[in-house]
């Protein structure tokens, strides 16, 4: 089974804060990490490989420092790491990103399954996986929480929705996006760390994947950010004052007002 896992380097959300004036993320001095959902995607790919044979490739688009994220994928057990890096890719929205990834997947050639994390924690759109499937002309199942069965022709995957679980039969080649809980990601072993350190991450440019310049980066991105706001957390708590007896009476009348009592 040949599996391509798409991964993204994101700022560590535990460290990120928002600039109150510009409403943008303060990225300076913040470590970059692999998108947490993508870690489940890599793990699922490795488990399928271990069960059914084949190879796992990790694929990413980003600046040169994203090589570290692909190395992480290699250190977990992937055979090959490919970074799409080109100044022309900068400023891509989800449409341009899925176009670019699709071009790279086509260049890689044969695959049985593409796995993505359900969404990236920096943009939170969950667009890229399904959009990539469309561009590749293969079916997809999103939010997969369990894989029940895999054959050469199809897989049966369980996905979660807001209020239900669905079992879906997906013909292969196909694409899935995975949720937290599908597996417990492993720690890198020494053997694979050495392999990662000794494997060269391939870097492909827009030219290498034969991308149409009008469809990549800022040019290929119809999304416009009109306004950004930071959600405010309102605390509705109220302090009651006075002697305890009065406070109790006050509390009871307030609860009655809100029809809690």
């Amino acid at each position, binding site marked *: 089974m040949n599996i391509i896992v798409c991964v993204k380097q994101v700022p560590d959300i535990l460290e990120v804060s928002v600039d109150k004036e510009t409403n943008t993320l303060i990225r300076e001095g913040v470590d970059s990490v692999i998108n947490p959902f993508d870690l489940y995607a890599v793990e699922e790919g490795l488990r399928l490989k271990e069960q059914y044979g084949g190879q796992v490739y990790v694929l990413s688009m980003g600046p040169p420092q994203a090589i570290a994220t692909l190395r992480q994928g290699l250190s977990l057990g992937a055979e090959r790491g490919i970074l799409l890096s080109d100044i022309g890719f900068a400023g891509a929205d989800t449409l341009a990103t899925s176009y670019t990834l699709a071009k790279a997947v086509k260049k890689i050639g044969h695959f049985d399954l593409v796995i993505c994390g359900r969404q990236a924690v920096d943009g939170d759109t969950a667009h890229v996986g399904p959009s990539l499937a469309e561009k590749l002309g293969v079916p997809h199942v999103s939010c997969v929480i369990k894989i029940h069965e895999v054959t050469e022709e199809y897989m049966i995957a369980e996905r979660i929705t807001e209020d239900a679980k669905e079992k879906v039969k997906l013909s292969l080649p196909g694409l899935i996006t995975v949720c937290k809980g599908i597996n417990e990601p492993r*720690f890198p072993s*020494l*053997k*694979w*760390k050495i392999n990662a350190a000794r494997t060269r991450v391939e870097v492909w440019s827009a030219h290498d994947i034969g991308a149409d310049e009008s469809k990549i980066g800022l040019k290929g991105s119809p999304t416009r950010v009109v306004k950004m706001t930071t959600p405010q957390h309102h605390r509705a708590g109220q302090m009651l004052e006075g002697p305890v007896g009065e406070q109790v009476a006050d509390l009871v009348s307030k609860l009655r007002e809100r029809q809690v009592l």
Partner: protein
Amino acid sequence: MTKCEVVIVGAGPAGIACGYVLAEAGVDVIILERGQYPGAKNMFGGIFFADQMNKLIPEFYTEAPVERFVAKKHYALLINDSEVSLNIDSEEHKKPPYNHSYIVRRSVFDKWFAEKAKAQGATIICGTAVTDFVWRDRRIIGVTADTADDDDNVLLADVVVCAEGANSMLSEKAGLRNRLSMRARCISVKEVIELGKDVIDERFGLTAREGAAYEYFADATPGMLGDGFIYTNMETLSVGVGVVISELYGRRNPPSPNQLLDRFKNHPCIRPLVKGGKTLEYSAHMIPMDGFRNLPRFYTDGLMLVGDAAGFVNNSICHEGVNMAMASGIMAAETILANRQERRYDARALRQYEHRLKNSFVLQNMKNSRDFIDILRTHKELLNNYPHLVQDVITSYFKVSDVPKSTVKRDISRMLRSRVSVVKAARTVMALMRGGI
């Protein structure tokens, strides 16, 4: 199981130097480092004696991240609230190769050095703690890392070089070392204090990349075997004290090392140099002080110890450690290269490593200073009475007043007679000359 020719445990000065030499000769070498990057866990005071480095990478200082070169040296006795000092300030030290003395920060420098070894072909794996050796027929044939429950965490090698540092758990497991003795360990604590280049240049009389190394003895650590230091980085000062750990025990209310550092920083002669700065980092490090007489065995079948793991720190005034670490790493590499054709790394073949050490400054300097710590320990007057006496003699002699010089001289000679036993002093000096300094 993965296999390579040489595994080196630890990416400090010794491990990286060893890996550099091996990789340069085309050996398949892997360095395993516990920290997240080479240098992440490495610490020292700050002065780097670089003649070994210059042999590996000539004129390294033109590209390496060195803070400043040591243009001025300052050796001082701190006494109560005063200081008597000796300054060395030479124009010669301000020209390349700068007397081979540089001020560096390990976390930055070792990262750079590791990249150099990588460029030679060494593989460096970080975030990996080696937990044990792999043995076959009483011979070390590899290492296990982290949770060693599967073959994927085993790395086999023809020979292992252990550069694990002062906290020498693996060397103990190999049976080369006994458990740590508190008499044989020094604890050093250091603050990095930000003052800005201009303030540092003005306070220490420096320009451009000139740096100063200030070493303090006697009351830097009052009544204890230890010393203090201030080294100038580019924008910050490294200020610290070191004390032999056993000195802190057996006392009522022993001060903690950071209390000693605070006391040092607040000495009237130190305070003006460090005042107004902001402390950016606080770190502590253990220094092996085995000394020549208590060194561990350096090798066994399939294994060599280098650097701090082997106790290669010279307990002398000169604070030799990193240069010895690098030299031992280089000699371990040379030993491997000499035996590489036959692929024989049993104890008999590795004895050559000991020969190399004995014929070099590493063991010769350690032998030269073999009794230094013991002499200080048994002749406490060297750290207490004598410095105070020197201070009193010098202050009296240079004091200008209406007391005639002849009277001053008579008073001084009385002072000397009452506070020093000539025989005892002569013995101490003899002992120091023989095996101290």
